[in-house]
């Protein structure tokens, strides 16, 4: 498939004005792609050249891309900057640059979808001295062969941000629309927002995507084997799954009732939660899934990043402790200070993920324990649809506790006082709080669900996304010292600002933040920049106020920087709804 075809579809998607049209167009593209191209196309319409769990970082910044466009087209740098500012994104500016190309070539080539994907994938492998220049040259090579529309989308793909209105939900619906409408099941309903897809088709695609985390596999299976093939897809050890995520409880007592009620196991008025809710210590560490396949052990974070190399002692513990031949366990990695035995704060432990220092030395200084609390698969049995108490039984038999591998502390309380005692005990031991879990509920990968709630001390920090920034004045004038923070609004898939942060960081931290933010800049206006909303910060504050100044209608009073949440993506940030609830609760 020529890249021009894909670019043409991207243009149609970008200008589609209804969900139905979006899904129809995308489904048409999926049907058009042949077996070799379908896997490439499903990731590239999301601006990616690999599934997230491959951890492929192209390392392409806006400034690198600008250099590549300049090199390929020979346009005036200032004019490109103006176009970028006026059009609001670099892809559109690249389109302009190719239209106004000033550099001839000796020969010209035709871009193919696979060729573009491979060239972009190779960028990730350029390392060390001279790697930036090589990336500029390779990207310039693509732009040189691109027509204006191709340039618009390949630049956006290089930057990992397509802006064509296609989300994971659109891809899901389009796969069902493209391949699963021929043979509808009796009594099946039409899926909303699609021309002809069915509810069961969309569900099968969603389920397969949660289990595989790989739309390349899902799309191919849907196309070749239909709905039955999708239902046969299963977890695969070594390939990470989306973990089930918790909502926040509005208080311990309310949480106990809420978590039981969500799945219909309890009743709002009766104390129906007794015997149906597990209260478990919430550890402040790194959520990981452990894949054990004989001696082959891998650890992935909830962002699906492979962190196996950072935790050799935990890998050893899993090899020793897990009696099952094959198992997929869900748990929290916690670092304990070797000298005091106290749990270490998250930032300390995250050093082990980054492996900035010697792995062995860090393991000795801050040995980690994996506190397991769920079991998704054991010896050929996938347990996602089993209730939690059955999964806990499986967890019990899957491993024996050894140094570095334990069950998470938990009880099934009979009354609120017992639950409160668990909570006090967890917090007193230096942990974060407790999790409340519905024992009758199945495991929902990738969902923040009400069958699992977390309860922590009040006025806890918020996790917010940087949306805009300003350079400071005076001593820090080269640094982006004023950061606008946004809470996530899932309905509009947008971030609404809740205030401006300017304290709490050291010069070194700020300088690192500036570097990271500058790589995300999409627009500049004098000393103000708009950034791609990607960087999630943990921020504490004294209280919430209503405010007409910010898009959310609320403002943080005295916000203060606590750290970067490396483990969170932008859509994992706290929501506008939560800010509103906190405001009302204070």
């Amino acid at each position: 498939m020529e890249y021009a075809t894909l670019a043409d579809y991207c243009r149609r998607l970008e200008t589609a004005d209804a969900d139905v049209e979006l899904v129809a167009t995308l489904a048409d593209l999926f049907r058009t792609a042949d077996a070799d191209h379908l896997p490439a196309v499903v990731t590239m319409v999301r601006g990616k050249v690999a599934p997230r769990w491959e951890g492929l970082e192209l390392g392409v910044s806006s400034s690198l891309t600008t250099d590549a466009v300049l090199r390929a087209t020979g346009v005036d740098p200032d004019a490109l900057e103006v176009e970028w500012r006026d059009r609001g994104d670099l892809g559109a500016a690249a389109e302009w640059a190719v239209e106004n190309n000033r550099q001839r070539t000796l020969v010209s080539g035709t871009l193919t979808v696979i060729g573009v994907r491979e060239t972009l994938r190779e960028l990730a492998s350029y390392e060390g001295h001279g790697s930036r220049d090589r990336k500029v040259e390779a990207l310039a090579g693509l732009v040189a062969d691109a027509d204006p529309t191709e340039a618009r989308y390949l630049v956006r793909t290089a930057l990992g941000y397509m802006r064509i209105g296609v989300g994971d939900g659109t891809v899901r619906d389009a796969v069902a629309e493209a391949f699963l409408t021929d043979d509808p099941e009796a009594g099946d309903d039409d899926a909303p927002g699609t021309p002809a897809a069915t509810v069961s088709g969309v569900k099968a695609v969603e389920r397969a995507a949660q289990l595989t985390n790989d739309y390349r596999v899902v799309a191919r299976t849907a196309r070749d084997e239909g709905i039955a093939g999708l239902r046969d897809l299963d977890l695969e050890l070594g390939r990470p799954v989306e973990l089930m995520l918790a909502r926040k409880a509005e208080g311990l007592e309310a949480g106990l009732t809420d978590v039981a009620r969500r799945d219909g196991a309890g009743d709002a008025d009766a104390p129906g939660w007794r015997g149906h809710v597990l209260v478990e210590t919430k550890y402040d560490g790194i959520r990981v899934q452990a894949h054990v396949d004989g001696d082959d052990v891998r650890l992935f974070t909830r962002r699906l990043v492979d962190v196996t190399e950072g935790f050799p002692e935990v890998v050893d513990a899993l090899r020793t402790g897990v009696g099952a031949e094959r198992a997929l366990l869900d748990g929290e990695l916690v670092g304990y200070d070797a000298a005091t035995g106290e749990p270490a704060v998250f930032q300390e432990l995250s050093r082990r993920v980054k492996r900035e220092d010697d792995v062995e030395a860090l393991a000795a200084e801050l040995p980690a324990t994996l506190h397991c609390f769920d079991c998704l698969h054991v010896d050929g049995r996938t347990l996602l649809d089993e209730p939690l108490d059955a999964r806990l039984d499986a967890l019990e038999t899957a491993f024996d506790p050894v140094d570095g591998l334990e069950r998470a502390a938990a009880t099934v309380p009979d009354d609120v006082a017992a639950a409160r005692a668990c909570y006090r005990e967890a917090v007193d031991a230096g942990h974060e709080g407790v999790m409340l879990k519905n024992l009758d509920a199945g495991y929902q990968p990738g969902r923040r669900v009400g069958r699992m709630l977390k309860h922590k001390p009040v006025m806890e920090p918020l996790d917010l996304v940087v949306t805009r920034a300003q350079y400071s004045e005076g001593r820090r004038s080269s640094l982006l010292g004023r950061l606008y923070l946004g809470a996530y609004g899932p309905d509009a898939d947008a971030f609404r600002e809740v205030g401006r942060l300017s304290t709490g960081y050291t010069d070194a931290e700020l300088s690192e933040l500036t570097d990271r933010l500058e790589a995300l800049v999409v627009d500049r206006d004098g000393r103000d920049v708009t950034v791609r909303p990607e960087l999630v910060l943990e921020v504490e504050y004294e209280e919430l106020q209503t405010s007409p100044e910010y898009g959310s209608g609320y403002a943080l009073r005295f916000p203060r920087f606590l750290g970067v949440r490396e483990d969170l993506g932008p859509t994992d940030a706290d929501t506008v709804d939560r800010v509103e609830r906190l405001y009302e609760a204070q």
Partner: protein
Amino acid sequence: MFKAIVSADTLESALDSVSVLVDECKINLNEDGLAIRAVDPANVGMVDLSLAADAFESYETDGGIIGVNLARLEEFVGMADSGQLVQLELDEETRKLHIQIEGLEGTLALIDPDSIRQEPDLPDLDLSAEIVVEGRDIDRAVTAADMVSDHIALGVDTDEEVFYVDAEGDTDDVHLTLTREDLISLEAGEARSLFSLDYLKDMDKAIPKDTEVRIELGEEFPVKMHFEIAEGKGKITYMLAPRIQSD
């Protein structure tokens, strides 16, 4: 089979002339010598190099093509002092290049030549003017133009019989005129083309200052620059696509 011994200086200048444009290239091992042709990823600049067998102290091959990472190979060769000899030998089994410099031995992993982009054919161009200058004149022109602009015009004025260089920046400009007396030779024809200094600067780095450079130039056409290294036993041609002239 490939086995050759060559002076480090000769090998270095040959490799430098290619590495200013590309990071990886295919080397054709011909019986009469090495040949490399490569075009940069953006298809703007091309290099065509041949290094004859008699540029080597010894040279044996029965043909073939190898792919190399130029930066890595240059690092190896850079270990040699000026005047030292470098021995290259292809291990067919492991597809590695065995390199020996005095007591130093090493092996360099090769790249699958098929993974390196296909070199294009040299476009056949009929260029109206031919100018022969010294390498240092090109260096002077490029350095002067770089002070004021990111592009440079090369041209021939047929009335005045001069070769000229113009560079115009936003505020400043530079002009350099070389008359027939300043040049080694001039075949005048109407010619003026604009070029990116980015590329020309890189090419200039690889052109020896004391060598003769034969420039072929046309009206809004690519420029060709021919020069020799290793006492005429290595021949290099650069070709550079023009920029579109401003209105």
